[in-house]
């Protein structure tokens, strides 16, 4: 049986958390290039140029890309033939603790939602586990900003609302909250499952590369259509008006009950920080 040490996991997580806070993904940088070509408002292009400059400065590794270095969220796939020497949960949490302290990242987590005292080390991270075949450990990490998270929404639609209902809900969500979520945005859309599964699908979608389309052509087409419709809203970079509001729409789907049509939109901002490691 293959064995991984907890310390190895901690080290990998800490490194990933720091790297993502400073170096924004190439897919976002290509998204900025696309935005410069497609944004018709001069003020909007000026914002995009600032974001490009910001990415360049942050990539030096001295000042993070955005001051909200996020709450950490993980999707962890544990191979059933893998033995972990140590406490998996604690190894990941310790990685976040170290990464956020050693990397000079902001500690943005409160211990309790109502009594609001900072934990001072950005833990706990939110971790979703899945047991899978094999002997590998796959860790998908996201540093999710609070401003864009706050503009996210979920609805339990009626099956009769159909695809139009889904489209309307996504567009309405961007229309209501998009300006406050630091556009240009990456949308994570979950369709199906049940109440909690739908939100998790949306989160998974928000942490996917904006350049990867849904493997089902039906949903890939819906992704493209929603991107176009959201960009017709006129919100523009930073909400100041323009033709580029979203860089990409990612959809994840799951089976659902015959009376249900859940849909969730997890808004991610241009600081869409995510990464993956396989140990």
């Amino acid at each position: 049986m293959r064995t991984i040490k907890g310390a190895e996991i901690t080290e990998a997580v800490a490194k990933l958390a720091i790297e993502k806070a400073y170096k924004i993904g190439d897919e976002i940088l290509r998204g900025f290039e696309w935005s410069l070509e497609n944004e018709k408002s001069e003020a909007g292009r000026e914002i995009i140029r600032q974001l490009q400059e910001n990415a360049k400065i942050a990539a030096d590794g001295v000042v993070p890309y955005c001051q909200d270095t996020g709450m950490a969220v993980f999707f962890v796939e544990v191979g059933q033939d893998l033995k972990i020497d140590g406490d998996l949960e604690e190894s990941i949490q310790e990685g976040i603790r170290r990464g956020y302290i050693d990397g000079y990242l902001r500690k943005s987590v409160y211990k309790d939602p109502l009594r609001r005292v900072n934990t001072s080390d950005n833990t706990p991270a939110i971790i979703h586990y899945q047991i899978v075949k094999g002997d590998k450990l796959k860790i998908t990490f996201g540093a999710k900003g609070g401003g864009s998270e706050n503009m996210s929404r979920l609805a339990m639609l009626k099956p009769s609302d159909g695809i139009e209902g889904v489209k309307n809900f996504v567009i309405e969500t961007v229309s209501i909250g998009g300006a406050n979520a630091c556009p240009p945005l990456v949308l994570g859309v979950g369709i199906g499952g049940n109440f909690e599964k739908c939100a998790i699908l949306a989160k998974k979608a928000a942490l996917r590369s904006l350049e990867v389309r849904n493997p089902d052509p039906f949903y890939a087409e819906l992704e493209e259509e929603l991107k176009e419709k959201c960009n017709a809203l006129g919100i523009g970079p930073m909400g100041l008006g323009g033709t580029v509001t979203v860089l990409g729409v990612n959809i994840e789907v799951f089976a659902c009950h015959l009376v249900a049509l859940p849909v969730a939109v997890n808004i991610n901002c241009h600081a869409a920080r995510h990464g993956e490691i396989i140990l």
Partner: protein
Amino acid sequence: MAEYRLTAPLKDEDVVKLKIGDKVLLSGTIYTARDAAHKRVVELLDKGEKPPFEIKGSVIYYVGPTPPRPGMVIGAAGPTTAVRMDAYAPRLMKEGMKAMIAKGKRNDSVKNAMVEYKVVYFGATGGAGALINKCIKKAEVVAFEDLGPEAVRKLEVEDFPLIVVGDSFGGDLYIEGRKKWQKAG
């Protein structure tokens, strides 16, 4: 759309020449404050006590920076969402605050108070934490140290790039800008 260079603290005559869409490069002294600091300042004012920094003419920046590395004055320092400060902002305007820097839409009571007290709302580029860091030359905690990243800091800034998103005549770029480019929805 005009371009201006301004130096904080600001006066009424600085504010009234600004219209939504104008670009401003701001230098001078500004203060940082977020929800918790706003709450405390308003509580002090309501008790008739003196706030711990000069509100008259002040520019308040809604920001919660990352911790500075050794030898640096501040970390990443982009704007936070303004709406959480909407409940407190009109009270500070009454005391003479002249401008706010943040991101995102404001409610009507804030917009009305901006007209009444001649106040401007500047948008900074959300998420541009590293870029804005370069404009901040000095930072010093002046109040509520116990609030950590939310403590009130006095900043010396140079050529901080801003856009007027709310002016003292009721103009709102989040509404007007979108109207201009909207094709659907």
